[in-house]
């Protein structure tokens, strides 16, 4: 009886510790309690400008949650970046110039639209190279079949 009673009590003790741990565990980059910036989640009135801003936001990387674009991310800093993008688009700045501004600060890392450069060249050239190799291999095997 005693041991049987012990089991569950022990388990609930472990659960309590686990729950307490979860409550006390705070993420390294906690979010602030402040409301999002004015244009973080509000579209621009002009649909043309908004679509421009949207297209840019989808190709800028969130620097907090690094697998997402700032358009997808709920992080505070992503919201502030969206607000900045919309503000500057509304003020007449071109998306290319805003992207350049971001790259100047965070590096090419921040852009999901990598330009052709020495570093990114393999990305662009590798598919072409692989296709060429594939073609060459295919040609070889077709020739062999014709002979037999």
């Amino acid at each position, binding site marked *: 009886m005693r041991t049987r009673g012990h089991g569950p009590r022990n388990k609930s003790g472990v659960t309590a510790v686990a729950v307490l741990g979860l409550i006390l565990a705070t993420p390294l*980059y906690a979010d*602030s309690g*402040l409301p999002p910036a004015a244009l973080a989640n509000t579209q621009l009135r002009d649909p043309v400008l908004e679509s421009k801003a949207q297209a840019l936001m989808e190709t800028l990387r969130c*620097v907090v949650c690094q697998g997402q674009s700032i358009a997808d991310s709920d992080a505070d800093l992503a919201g*502030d*970046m969206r607000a900045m993008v919309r503000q500057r688009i509304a003020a007449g700045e071109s998306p290319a110039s805003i992207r350049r501004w971001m790259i100047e600060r965070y590096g090419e890392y921040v852009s999901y639209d990598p330009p052709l450069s020495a570093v990114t060249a393999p990305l662009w050239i590798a598919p072409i190279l692989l296709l060429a190799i594939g073609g060459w291999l295919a040609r070889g095997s077709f020739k062999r079949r014709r002979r037999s």
Partner: protein
Amino acid sequence: MKRGLLWLPFMAFALLFGVVAYGLRSPADRQIHSKMVGKDLPAFSLPAIIKTKPGLDSALFKQGKPRLLNVFASWCIPCIAEAPQLMRLKAMGVPIDAIAIRDTGPAIQGFLSRNGDPYERIGDDKISQVQMSLGSSGVPETFVIDGQGKIVLQQIGEIREEDIPAVLAALQGKK
């Protein structure tokens, strides 16, 4: 010729294996280093966030003496861990200014009374605008600015005891 070709797939596999093994042994650096290091501090002017301390203007960093620019927030947990080290630097005579990210006056006041107050000035950056212009991606981060307004060092994450020598060296222009 044919015989050599036979080994080609295996060589390709070995190469791929090597690349993956190397990647496993040296995990990628997930920190985003500011590209502003080595460049001039962008111009900004931030209002005060608490009544007892002035706001922050970038012109302050061009007055000849190197200073620390700490990017922090009252809601940031590692900032609490960093506070004693900043107090130490302050005791050594290092001037420290701060930018408070997405914060309020009362929250900052509470943070300073709990963790100590190493700051001469604190600028209020409610929408992270100046933080972005610095190429900073989180809190806490600390920038060492030389007396001419050039950024010479970015410390990502809290300053720990072992980081102090590097910060001091940067302040003395040794880096």
